């Protein structure tokens, strides 16, 4: 009996172990970014170089996994959706510097670490969408979100979402903790409903008349326009770039980090160079409607149609520094409750 049980147990183990395979030319990616955003890029890369890209997608815990795997980790590259996760990887000493002339030429210095520990790939703006039931507001600001005239008219996703925490962190960096608290209180009072859903769901809510204002990233507007079912949602709102007369619109970045023990370092650097290069940056721009960090790559026509805008020139690493404070303040004002 005992023997049978042991045999069965070890058989389970072996079956699992045999699932591991090793391929010749690969690069392994841990991605916080969703598959449909990055998979087209990887396909392109494989087509160009013959290097296979293997991916694990997860929204949570990849850095913990990387940390525990240590030297044995198969991961070469980590893709993140915002700056705080990039910095988090660097601070945990899970990254290694990359000195690549190609990358440094493609990515302007304010969008990469001076030592080359992390690189931003795309910029995303935190926009305010307003309903077309009324006129497009002139000179809307993030401060307006706390203005009592919008009481009961604003929709947003959870304050704890990285995009919103980033926005709050930028507010903290620009205006200090005290002012941010007051602003958040006013913002919260103006909410039409408890924060819920994703960015697109907020635009949908505007269409449905649940609210008049919605917070959302720029590229979602593009994504909605490209989706037959969602186009009416996007068509029901104006896209506004806030704070044009002040600091400029809040910008966060998605980015990449070469892992400390990357086993396929050369391939990984090739992938990084590819992602920073014109072709991939153009895909980011055309397919994902994001703003490429590579200044040589133009934005897509649709994105261009939203107009020029001034972005907050706060260095992105400042966001990461204020991330915890932002989180704390969101809890203090019970933003989600």
């Amino acid at each position, binding site marked *: *009996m005992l023997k049978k049980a042991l045999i069965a147990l070890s058989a389970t183990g072996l079956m699992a172990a045999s699932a591991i395979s090793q391929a010749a030319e690969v690069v392994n990616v841990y991605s916080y970014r969703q598959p449909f955003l990055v998979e087209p890029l990887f396909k392109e890369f494989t087509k160009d170089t013959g290097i296979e890209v293997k991916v*694990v997608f997860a929204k*949570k815990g990849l850095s913990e996994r990387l940390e*525990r795997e240590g030297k044995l980790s198969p991961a070469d590259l980590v893709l993140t959706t915002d700056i705080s996760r990039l910095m988090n990887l660097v601070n945990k000493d899970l990254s290694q510097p990359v000195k690549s002339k190609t990358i440094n030429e493609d990515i302007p210095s304010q969008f990469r670490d001076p030592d080359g520990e992390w690189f931003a790939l795309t910029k995303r703006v935190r926009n305010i969408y307003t309903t077309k039931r009324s006129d497009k507001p002139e000179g809307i600001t993030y401060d307006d979100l706390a203005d009592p005239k919008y009481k009961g008219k604003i929709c947003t996703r959870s304050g704890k979402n990285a995009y919103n925490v980033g926005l709050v962190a930028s507010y903290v960096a620009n205006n200090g903790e005290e002012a941010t608290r007051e602003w958040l209180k006013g913002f919260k009072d103006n909410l039409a409903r408890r924060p819920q859903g994703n960015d697109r*769901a907020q635009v949908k809510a505007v269409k449905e008349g649940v609210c008049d204002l919605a917070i959302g990233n720029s590229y979602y507007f593009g994504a909605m326009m490209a989706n037959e079912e969602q186009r009416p949602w996007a068509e029901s709102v104006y896209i506004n770039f806030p704070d044009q007369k002040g600091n400029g619109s809040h910008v966060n970045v998605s980015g990449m980090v070469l892992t400390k023990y990357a086993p396929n370092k050369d391939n990984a650097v090739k992938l990084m160079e590819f992602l920073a290069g014109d072709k991939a940056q153009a895909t980011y721009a055309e397919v994902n409607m994001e703003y490429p960090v590579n200044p040589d790559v133009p934005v897509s026509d649709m994105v261009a149609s939203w107009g020029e805008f001034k972005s907050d020139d706060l260095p992105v690493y400042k966001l990461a520094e204020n991330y915890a404070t932002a989180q704390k303040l969101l*809890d*203090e004002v019970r933003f989600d409750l």
Partner: protein
Amino acid sequence: MKHVPTAQANVHTPLSQTESGKARSISRQGLSIYWRAGSWLLALLLFTPVLALIYEASAPTGEIFAHLRNTVLGTYILNTVLLISGVGILGLILALPAAWIMANSEIPGKRYLQWLLVLPLAMPSYVVAYIYTDLLEYAGPVQRLLRDVTGWESAADYYFPDIRSLGGAIIILALVLYPYLYLLARTAFMEHSQSQILASRLLGCSPISSFLRVSIPMARPAIITGLALMGIETLGDFATVDYFAVPTLTTAVYDTWLGYGSLNAAAKLSAIMLVVVMLLISMEKYSRRRQQLYQKNTGQDHKKASSLKGWKKALALFWCWMLVSLGFLLPAMVLLDYVFRYFSDSWNIELLTYSLNSLKVSLGAATFATLVALFLGLYQRLQKSRFSSIPSRLVSTGYALPGNVLAIGVLTPLTLSDHGLNGIIMAFEYPPVGLVFSGSIFAIIFAYAVRFSAVAVGSVESSLGRVSPSLDMASRTLGCTPSEMVRRVHIPMVRKGLLTGFLLVFIESMKELPAALLLRPFGFESLATWVFQFVSDEKLEQAALAALILVLAGLVPLILLNRSLEAEQK
């Protein structure tokens, strides 16, 4: 009962030749040392993730805790308590009448209803949540119809309850979790003898008051067990409450971990939840102790179900079909509708691979967990010492942890083993083998075993508990060694319990999400991870086929499960 302290005692005693021969056989009196050591090792192995988290929790967490307490923790706890009690109460309201109807009366289509009522268990709660939101939100068909009929124009014109709320979460979770209670209560109601019900009727109880005053109190242990299971599942749920934006303790765990970047504080919160679940589990254990007494006293009389007539029949039919419709048929039809409308989007040749992956992992986890449950259950029965129940309890703690936190806990021992193994191999100057444990589907299977062993352990334990101790004595005196007894008596007799445990773990593993998301190896996609990816992106339509396969894959084991539980009655 004290057991022979093995052979050492004999070694020191000057014994004749024949007696030293005896000494060897004497050492077989208790369980073999392998079994005893194996049980403890296995239990500790499955306990390591929890241990890793306890270790994490012991690190200082600075001000985060105080800050949380001062701000949102109270609301999170309140929400958690409301959610669990709400799901429990609604579960009682939904499940008990259905269970009683199925146990005591004859209504048309009972044969089918009996297992149809179990099917909501095959529905992943996040899929049901998504579908109901789609139906009931402002733009959904229900409100649209309402507006068309009444002429209201916008959300401001009328009140409609928000599905994305605590209440909504309670309803959805109760709808998919009530079968736990239904199954257990039905079994208990069927075990009650006709004479007990008759006695209460002769003493002046109407059928309703006989149900309230006799049937329910007698079924209390089963009901408490069912409630405990629902409570634990609710506490561990993240996908549904996240989708409905209802912050609970699980939310707090993720906030502290991801928002504040403190895994230590998150582990500490998980430890609190662990305590809550341990309480629920001991409540369940306690009630089962009583249950054994009840079962011994049940007579052999088989009662006949009375056939209902008139409005009673209509009401009973309505109730059962309402449960089946809301918990299963309606969401399944919506899925089917999605599949037809979005077939080209949701069809994907890879689905076959995902299905096989799901199947592989779930079968592995179910086999692993069932073997663990059998091994430890027998250890507990045969090694009657004060400590022999500890391994089973240790193994059950994993059930208490939210999947994602558990996944981190699982990573720690697995990566440590990987490092150890590679260290050894490299010391002999062989090339390293890489992440054999944490980088393969073994990690997911192990995580599921840690998370769901409790379910299998419970099932095997209750089934072993029904085997009279005199059968052990009978088989021993008839010449069986302990291991022969296990093979010839115990295993055949707990087959049903093993099957039940296996199927439950299988169904749970098919649906499980967070651990699979984090622990999966490169390129690994299961049905659940595939579906959730689209749910979280608010376009389930495009994964409808995968979701439907997921549900169908759960149906077969559920129907088998129901049949096995029914057969146990006879």
